[in-house]
């Protein structure tokens, strides 16, 4: 197999593009896709400071790597979820990357903010662990960006993540979720920062290949709570479709973004207000994050109460 650009020996085949690339030309292809995403959706400018949410995985570290090489002013944010050895290792990967590149990394612990780490939140809420985890991450990313005066948060969501989320929304016809599915969400309130996904044009395999070829030391083992997650099941279904018809995931997501999403946009979004407790933006009197923290506090109090054991 030959590289589409230089004609040398290819290292990676991209069936959806009917192309193959050598290592150097693939890295350039990857960077071009990120540049195109940033340009097309006006994600941020070179004058803005970008908060890059990093997990220690291939996607977020690949994203940070590209943005640094492109000369953007970035600060990393690692949220320690308290998921046993997985969190210890993933934090170490982020700290090592930040140290090697000489860039700032902020670290916040979910246990300090919510009152308990993700495994305890899972027990208290009796809901899938990704639920409380995702809620906490979105809240803390926004709050950290505001606290540090950063106007935008970039996350490592890739094409597979976005296609799987869209698939889940469509399967349940969550029409209220469809307008929010976008590579770039503008700030709609002074206390909501912009949220962008510069890797949305790149598949999971492409981000993994980029991280490998760039010798980025990322955590390969998956979050122990991911097994059985609905999003994983949806990804498996989409990968079978992709195998039968290369480009299926791309067409599904990009077709939605270009043709269908505008039909679900409403003239007015939901009414936003500030949480009576923490001041962050919410659609109700008290935000979901404060309610979660209350739930954890109540569960801890009842566990500590005399006769509880």
């Amino acid at each position: 197999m030959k590289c589409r650009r230089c004609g040398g020996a290819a290292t990676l085949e991209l069936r959806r593009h009917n192309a193959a690339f050598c290592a150097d030309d693939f890295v350039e292809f990857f960077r071009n896709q990120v540049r195109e995403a940033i340009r097309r959706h006006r994600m941020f400018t070179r004058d803005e400071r970008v908060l890059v949410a990093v997990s220690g995985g291939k996607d977020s570290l690949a994203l940070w790597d590209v943005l640094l090489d492109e000369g953007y002013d970035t600060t990393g944010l690692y949220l320690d979820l308290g998921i046993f050895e997985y969190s210890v290792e993933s934090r170490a990967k982020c700290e090592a990357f930040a140290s090697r590149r000489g860039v700032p990394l902020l670290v916040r612990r979910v246990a300090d903010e919510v009152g308990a780490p993700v495994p305890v939140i899972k027990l208290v809420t009796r809901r899938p662990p990704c639920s409380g985890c995702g809620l906490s991450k979105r809240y803390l990313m926004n709050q950290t960006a505001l606290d540090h005066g950063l106007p935008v948060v970039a996350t490592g969501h890739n094409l597979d993540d976005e296609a799987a989320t869209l698939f889940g929304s469509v399967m349940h016809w969550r029409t209220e979720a469809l307008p929010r599915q976008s590579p770039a969400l503008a700030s709609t309130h002074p206390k909501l920062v912009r949220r962008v996904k510069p890797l949305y044009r790149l598949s999971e395999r492409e981000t993994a290949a980029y991280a490998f070829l760039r010798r980025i030391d990322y955590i390969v083992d998956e979050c122990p709570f991911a097994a059985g997650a609905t999003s994983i099941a949806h990804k498996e279904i989409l990968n079978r479709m992709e195998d039968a018809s290369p480009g299926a995931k791309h067409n599904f997501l990009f077709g939605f973004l270009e043709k269908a999403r505008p039909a679900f946009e409403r003239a007015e979004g939901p009414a936003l207000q500030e949480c009576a407790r923490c001041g962050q933006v919410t659609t109700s009197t008290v935000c979901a994050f404060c309610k979660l923290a209350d739930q954890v506090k109540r569960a801890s109090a009842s566990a500590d109460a005399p006769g509880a054991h």
Partner: protein
Amino acid sequence: MKVLLRNPRREVTLAGNRRVKEILRELEILPETVLVIRGDDLVTADQVVRDDETIELRPVMSGGRA
């Protein structure tokens, strides 16, 4: 050849020289879901892995994020 797999970590031995696409088919792994790694390089589906070589099939899927 030795084939290293993850989730869970395990090692499979296959006999003979094989093309990557045949290895993936035999192990019932979709090409879209793994990187095929030999040493410091990635290997495309048409390349042959020799009987005395070791490759890693590294899963690329992450998820569970809400």
